[in-house]
C-alpha cells in the first residue's frame, strides 16, 4: 500500500483527508505539526506528503524545504494545502519545491484525484 503523510493543525481537516485517503486505499500517517511531519517523513519514508501551509511552528513550506534539502526525503512527492490565496503564497510553495498546490476549501475527491495524478506521473 502506498504510504501518504498528512500534516494539518486542524483536527477536522486532518481526519477528513485521512478518511478519504484510506477509503481510496492509501495507508495514512496523520500528524498535527511540522516537526512531527519531518520526523515521520524521515522514519516512515512515505511516497507522498500532503502539507498544510499554515501550521504553527514549522510551516508546511518550511517542512517542504527541509524535506527537499535532505537526500533521504528529497524524493517524496509533496502537495501543499492552503487557505492563503495570495500569489506570493502559491509561488512560495512551488519555490520551496512542492509538486502541487490545493486551496481550501477543496473537495476531498479533488484532492484524491490530484494525488493519484501525481503518483501516476511519478511512476511513469
Amino acid at each position, binding site marked *: 500500500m502506498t504510504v501518504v503523510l498528512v500534516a494539518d493543525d*486542524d483536527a477536522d481537516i486532518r481526519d*477528513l483527508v485521512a478518511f*478519504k485517503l484510506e477509503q481510496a486505499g492509501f495507508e495514512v500517517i496523520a500528524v498535527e505539526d511540522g516537526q512531527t511531519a519531518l520526523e515521520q517523513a524521515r522514519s516512515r519514508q512515505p511516497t507522498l506528503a500532503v502539507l498544510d501551509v499554515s501550521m504553527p511552528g514549522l510551516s508546511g513550506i518550511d517542512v517542504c524545504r527541509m524535506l527537499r534539502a535532505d537526500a533521504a526525503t528529497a524524493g517524496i512527492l509533496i502537495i501543499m494545502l492552503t487557505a492563503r490565496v495570495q500569489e506570493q503564497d502559491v509561488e512560495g510553495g512551488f519555490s520551496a519545491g512542492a509538486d502541487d498546490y490545493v486551496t481550501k*476549501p477543496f473537495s476531498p475527491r479533488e484532492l484524491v484525484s490530484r494525488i493519484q495524478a501525481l503518483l501516476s506521473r511519478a511512476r511513469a
Partner: protein
Amino acid sequence: MRPAGTTRHTAPVRGAGTLCGTKIAAGPVRDGGTTRSAGSVRRLLVWAVVVGAAAGGVIAVGARRGRIGPPVGDASGPRAGQAGGPGVGDASSPGIARAGQAGGPRVGGVSGRRTEGQGGWRLLGGAGSWWPGGAGGWRAAGRLTGLRVVGPAGGALDEAQTDFMSTVSHELRTPLTSISGYAEMLRDAEPGELSEAQLRMVEAIVRNARRLRELVEDILTQSRIESGGFATHPAALDLAQLVERAVSTLEPAAAKASVGLRAEVSGPLPLRGDGVQLDRVLASLIGNAVKFTPAAGTVTVRAERRDDQAVLVIADTGMGIPASEQNALFGRFFRATNALHHAVPGAGLGLAITRKIVHNHGGTIHVRSTENVGTTVTVRLPAEQPKN
C-alpha cells in the same frame, strides 16, 4: 442616532498605508507590558481593534474575545475601559468619525451593530465607529474591525495589511473546508447509504457551503479594494477576446435557464488593463443579466469602439431595477427589492467591486433600467490605438 459633533468622513485617510481609513504600522504588539509576536497576534486577529493614529504615533487597542485590552503604543491616547476611552457606546453610527483636528487621534471604522460580550465589547472582524466623547475621550459603538499595530506611524504596513487579509482568509476558509468536505462525503454515501430525506438535507448543506465560499471571496475582495490592497496589473489586452470568452463561459448557465445569450463584438478592441479584473467585471455583469432574466428572455452583449473608447453594452430583457432604487445600485450589499422578492441569490457585492475596477481603469459605468422590461449596463473604457 449620531451624537452631535460627529464628523462624517468618507474618503480613506491616505498615509503610508491605510486600513479602513486608519493609518497603521506593523510591528510586534505591546499589550499592557507584554510583547506579543506577530504570530500570536495573528491568532487574536478577528478580535483586535485598530484605532487611529495620533500625531506621530499609533494607538492600537488589543482585544481578546469579550474584553477590550489596554491600548498599546501611544500612551497619550485614551485607554479602553477608562472614562472617555473606547468602551460602551450608546448608539450605532455609520460612517467614519474623525477626531477634532488639534492632535487628536484619527479613527477609522465603518458601520456596524453594537454587540456586547462578557462585561465588555465583543469584537468581530467587521466595522464599528468612534466618535468624540466627553472630556476629550472617545466613545465607541458597534463591531470593531481589527488589526493589531504598533510603532511609530510610517513604519512598514503593507505587510500588516496583507497579513490581515491573508489571515482572515485562512480563518474563514478552514471551517468551510470541513463543512463542505464532510457534507460531500455524506452525500457520496462514503460512510454509508443515506435515506432520500437525509440525502436532500445533505445536498442543502453542500449547496450553502458553496454559497458561503463565494460570499467569502467577494467580501475579501471588497475589503482589499477598500483598503487599497487591490492592485491592478495592467497589460495590453483585447476587450473583444475577453468578451467572447466570458460569453462562451456563461453560455451553459444561460442555456440551462432558457435565457438567450449572444455576443455582438466588432473587434479587435485593444486597451490597457488588468485581464483578471476585467474578466471579473464581465462575469459579474453578464452573470447578473442572465440571473435576473426569466426564461425565454435574452441577454445581448455588444462591444465596439467609439472614438477613443471601447464601449461595452450588456442589455437584458429581465426583471429590471425599480426606478427608486437605481441610485443605490452600486452600494455595497445593495439588493433590489424585486430581486429579494423573487429570491434571486447573491450577496449584492458584485456591482460595488465591478464599479471600482471600472474606475481603476479610467472608465465609467452606467445603468438604465425599467422594471419588468429590462436593464442595460454600459461600460466605457479608454481604448488604445490599434497597431497597424
